[in-house]
């Protein structure tokens, strides 16, 4: 059978970075093909070449056996290739229907296109379980439905092959299940699906075949049935990886942080954090699970002093730090904060690593007396931290943006842990971080706990929450839905995350 897509000898360099090395891959029509690999392994580059964002330095692309040149995404669309990006490309104030039609209006007047698209949407909804209200405003839809609009967009343009880039990152387990159901129907209808992910479980659950990428090379392609999670993980990193975290029992001590009836309302007056109470003790890791966007980010901001509570208290070592509303003072009290979004908050891309490594701590007298900032001390401090936390390359003068995601995150974790906090609050410590770095970051967090410090962990990765936490809180719509032990099943937590719970606090 002629493959739907063939990539032959694709090679791509960005300056000194060899992003794709002679990649050859054939994707069978009517199948779900997974592509898995660490961050920076070259998955996204490869798909960007297929979708026309980049051109390969050498190599050939064949669609249904015919050699083609793909110079832009419109070339790709014309060849029946559609892509659902990790970050949706939707116009939020537009309706679902308008978004689907956008760019494919086919005339000066919008009316006929909308009428045609409406009929088409009804058909697609019936065929693929892709129900979306065509007149709903996209910005008001939950993420799962927004993603469906993205898929509809691709199908409306006649996509035969659908590329999905990390599609489940933002979904609840239920929504992910529905997505998988849709993908299976697509496959049954003869469409080809390429799934880019770093989640081994998804690969095992849904794909027919899986290709593993490592450092720009395609190292193996397997029939999913004939492989195991362990084998794939090993192929990804090139060595055996411990997927479970080794950790002993916790010895919780006195309470360090107490959050009492905390509420935070946004500008529209909507309570994003709604009457939340909990406490964190010395020597334990409290995990907060939840689908992203259910108030965890806002909770972290309030505790870190970035936002001021609307009502309630944040008591840290006996002192109400909520009223300070100032991250600098909160830090001075002994609280360190690894932010959820390292690109936009954790560091400053245009600063060199040494300067990013003092962000938030730049007032320390050890970095310069009074108003001065001693450059030598700043660099020396960064060099020591980079060495200890194995940040690569260990060059404090390199721009922060030039480090890979995992190394950026290590730089931030190093900065916050080395400030010797009594409480570390961590948001998404391993989002977009490769397996090697995940392992290391988890180890350091547990080490901090074992030193008797308190850790508050927020993550949307259930695996991470379950393997690190000593206690688990689940947040939904700004409220704490319940507390569970580390042995809680995924299903149990998943229900709480979806807002189904008996013991809503």
């Amino acid at each position, binding site marked *: 059978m002629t493959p739907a897509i063939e990539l032959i000898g694709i090679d791509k360099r*960005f300056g000194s970075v060899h*992003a794709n090395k002679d990649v050859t891959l054939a994707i069978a029509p009517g199948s779900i093909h997974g592509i898995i690999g660490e961050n920076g392994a070259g998955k*996204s580059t490869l798909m960007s070449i297929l979708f026309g964002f*980049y*051109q390969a330095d050498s190599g050939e692309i064949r669609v249904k056996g015919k050699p083609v040149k793909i110079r832009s995404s419109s070339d790709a669309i014309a060849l029946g290739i559609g892509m659902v990006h990790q970050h949706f490309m939707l116009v939020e104030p537009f309706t679902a229907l308008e978004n689907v039609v956008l760019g494919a209006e086919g005339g000066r007047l919008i009316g006929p296109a909308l009428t045609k698209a409406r009929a088409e949407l009804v058909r697609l909804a019936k065929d693929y379980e892709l129900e979306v209200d065509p007149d709903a405003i996209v910005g008001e839809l939950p993420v799962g439905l927004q993603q469906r609009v993205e898929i509809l967009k691709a199908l409306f343009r006649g996509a035969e092959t659908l590329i999905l880039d990390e599609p489940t990152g933002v979904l609840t387990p239920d929504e992910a299940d529905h997505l998988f159901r849709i993908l299976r129907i697509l496959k049954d209808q003869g469409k080809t699906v390429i799934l880019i992910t770093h989640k081994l479980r998804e690969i095992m659950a849904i794909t027919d075949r899986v290709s593993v990428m490592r450092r720009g090379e395609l190292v193996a392609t397997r029939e999913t049935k004939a492989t195991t999670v362990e084998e794939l993980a090993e192929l990804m990193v090139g060595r055996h990886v411990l997927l479970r975290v080794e950790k002993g029992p916790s010895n919780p001590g006195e309470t360090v942080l107490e959050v009492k009836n905390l509420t935070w309302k946004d500008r529209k007056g909507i309570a994003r954090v709604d009457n939340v109470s909990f406490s964190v003790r010395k020597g334990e890791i409290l995990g907060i699970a939840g689908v992203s966007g259910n108030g965890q980010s806002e909770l972290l901001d309030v505790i870190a002093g970035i936002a001021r509570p609307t009502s309630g208290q944040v008591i840290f070592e006996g002192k109400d730090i909520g009223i300070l509303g100032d991250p600098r003072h909160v830090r001075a009290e002994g609280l360190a904060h690894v932010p959820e979004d390292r690109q936009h908050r954790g*560091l*400053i891309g245009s600063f060199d690593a040494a300067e990013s490594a003092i962000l938030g701590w730049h007032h320390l007298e050890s970095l310069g007396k009074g*108003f*001065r900032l*001693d450059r030598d001390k700043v660099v020396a401090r960064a060099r020591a931290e980079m060495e200890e936390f194995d940040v690569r390359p260990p060059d404090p003068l390199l721009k922060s943006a030039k480090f890979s995601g995992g190394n950026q995150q290590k730089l931030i974790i190093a900065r916050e842990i080395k400030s010797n906090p009594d409480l570390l609050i961590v948001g998404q410590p391993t989002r977009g971080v490769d397996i090697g770095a995940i392992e290391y970051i988890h180890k350091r967090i547990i080490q901090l706990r074992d030193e008797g410090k308190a850790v508050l962990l927020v993550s949307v990765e259930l695996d991470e929450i379950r393997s690190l936490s000593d206690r688990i809180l689940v947040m939904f719509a700004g409220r704490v839905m319940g507390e569970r032990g580390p042995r809680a099943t995924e299903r149990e937590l998943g229900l709480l995350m979806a807002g189904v719970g008996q013991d809503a606090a």
Partner: protein
Amino acid sequence: MMQSRGELPHWVDVGLIPVINLAVALIASGLVVLIIGENPFEAMWIMVQGSLGSLKGWGYMLYYATNFVFTGLAVAVAFHAGLFNIGGEGQAYMAGVGAATVGLGLDFLPWPILLPLAILAAMAMGAFWAWIPGVLQAKRGSHIVITTIMFNFIAASLVGYLINYWFRPVGKMAVESREITGAYILSAREVAREYFGVKLASSPLNFSVFLALIAAWAVWYLLWRTKLGYEIRALGANPSAAIYAGIRPDRIIIIAMAISGALAGLMAVNEILGVQHRLLLGYVGGAGFVGIAVALMGRSHPIGILLAAMLFGLLYQGGSELSFAKPEINRDMVVVIQGLVILFMGAFEYAFRPALSALFYPLGGEGNQ
């Protein structure tokens, strides 16, 4: 992802691009000269000769450059905080009022006390005139570009009023203050004559040129060697990271604007205390706006600003020589040429970037992988 092009090598960024922009600007100016029937090469020779061919030319060139260093640094400091201060014109104008008030009002003081006071007063007035838009931006969200432009107009009218009704001595026809005798910066010519017995050609160059060098060093030190400078740059580079770090944007915006205004105010020191020795109408003469081009061309770095300020000093001095030597190329024509240079160096600063990127990375851009 699609448009992220590779970063160009450093030398291209700070060396080649300005040179290309300058070359294109000169070619465009040459065409203009050609159209009005003059020889562009001759015109260019007159400009270079007029500014670099004699001590007098050098004197004028450096005097203009002094002004542009101050206004360029002012733009650069605000720019590092993510603010576009285009009110240098008004801030420098208001600063003259500060310098003249102290210089005239306290002229019973001996000059070693009076002069520093007058300089501080100039800086304070400039800072004050930038502080108001800073507060409006920080506390009320009024956009700094809009407010600083409006403040240029307010300053223009206000200073005109003050000179006419407050500073002008009774019976004097010219709209200007009486002479400031106590706070007086010696010109290079006077220093050479008084202390070295050397006769120099007349030029407005004065000791303020050293003040410009000190200011350039101070700005470098502030931005890259102090905690405040770190906060200013952090806010400009990434506001959400700055907030995460406990840096208060409102505070930094106000401080950065005040520093920016103070630097612009130093322009009045060169002009009022160093050259004119009296407060007069319209002495800023566009230096505040040239500062924007200087800061852009100098990549908001003090060294770059010193070099760019000298280039614009050359254009100003050479330009006036040119209009003198070639009646067909009148003063307005020279302004056109200066405008073209500002256009290519400032507004089209990035015009040749994509082409150069394609040259350095022939096969697409540097991606995120």
